């Protein structure tokens, strides 16, 4: 594996920018090697010296990532919009209005299709989450089917949900695993709230929903704040931190509102889900990139 292949495996950039950058460095290495060859250095030695002068590919990849990783304020606004819309849906008690729900669902689908067809910008991934949430909710609803139907539905539903998730995540993993985590961030939060509400009442009854609505709105406001931080900071470790802190904060709010309604096993599951949304994409990307490098 040569220097540029190694560098490519570390780069997490838009494919057009990445290819342009690699082409530019290839030109630089050609010039440097030619100059060294003209001064009497052997081909092998010249290649070695030229790449040494460029420095560690990992460091170079990090530096170039930090150039492109900060989104503009406009992108930030676009990325936080779905979370703010959801927060206002609960804060204003509009969730039971079919008209608002229909407008929001059609709007989300439209925005996602537009973003997917226009180069998958960073803001798209926080919208994408809302298309996946019905998948999660449908899974939780399965628990309320009568008797043996739960097992039949689960056998059909679980593989289907996994296939949908894997197809979407695989596409995004080609860009950056952090975007998969960004996309999945609302999942542990929504699952947490669905579990709290379903333990307290008959599913989605209005009373507890009205009581919890302000807290749910707060959760989505925290989510919006975390996404804004994610888009605006350059450093990867702060992006990871923003997602992790958001999940911890919201699950803490869920715990406070739940009044000990959830068992320790449910909390363990929610905590693992919050950790998994961050670390499973990282692990999968590592495996995918390793596979691509070994095949090349």
């Amino acid at each position, binding site marked *: 594996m040569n220097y540029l292949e190694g560098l490519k495996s570390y780069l997490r950039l838009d494919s057009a920018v990445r290819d*342009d*950058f690699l*082409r*530019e*460095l290839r*030109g*630089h290495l*050609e*010039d*440097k090697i030619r100059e060294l060859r003209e001064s009497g250095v052997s081909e092998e030695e010249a290649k070695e010296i030229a790449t040494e*002068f*460029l*420095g*560690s590919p990992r*460091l*170079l990849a990090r*530096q*170039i990532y*930090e*150039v*492109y990783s900060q989104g503009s304020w406009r992108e930030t606004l676009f990325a936080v919009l779905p979370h703010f819309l959801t927060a206002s849906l609960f804060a204003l008690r509009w969730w039971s209005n079919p008209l608002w729900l229909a407008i929001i669902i059609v709007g989300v689908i439209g925005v996602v299709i537009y973003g997917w067809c226009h180069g998958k910008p960073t803001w798209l991934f926080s919208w994408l989450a809302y298309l996946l949430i019905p998948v999660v909710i449908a899974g939780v609803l399965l628990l309320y089917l009568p008797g043996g139907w739960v097992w039949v539905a689960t056998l059909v539903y679980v593989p289907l949900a996994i296939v949908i998730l894997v197809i979407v995540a695989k596409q995004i993993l080609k860009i950056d695993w952090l975007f998969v985590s960004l996309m999945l961030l609302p999942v542990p939060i929504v699952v947490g709230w669905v579990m709290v509400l379903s333990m307290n009442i008959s599913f989605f009854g209005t009373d507890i929903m009205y009581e919890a609505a302000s807290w749910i709105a707060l959760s989505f406001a925290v989510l919006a704040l975390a996404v804004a931080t994610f888009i605006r900071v350059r450093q990867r470790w702060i992006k990871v931190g923003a997602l992790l802190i958001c999940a911890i904060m919201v699950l803490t709010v869920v715990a406070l509102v739940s009044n000990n309604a959830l068992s320790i096993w449910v909390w363990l599951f929610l905590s693992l889900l919050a950790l998994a949304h961050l670390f499973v994409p990282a692990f999968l990307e590592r495996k995918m990139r390793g596979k691509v490098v070994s095949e090349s």
Partner: protein
Amino acid sequence: MNYGRELLKGSTDSLLLCLINSQPMYGYQIIKELEVKSNGYFQFKEGTLYPALHRLEKNGLIKGKWQKLPSGQERRYYYITEKGQGALNERLAIWRGFSEAIDLVMLPSA
């Protein structure tokens, strides 16, 4: 940290803008030109040049464009933009004031 390295780090963008303002250049050419113009004083770490160039481009101060060399190979030439020229003029004015003040304090006899 090395004082010279710190000074260079703070002046990198200004040096790059100044060189590109004199004529459009590509990365390797910039490194060579900087070395020649500074009598070998500035020896850029090659790996740090490209993130700096891309940062300037992202901020709209320069613009990259692929062009063919007489040899037929392509290189990405950087051109200064109007915004870049404005930023350079501002930096030059600040630098003149700053270096005069430094000289007055640190080299009073000169």
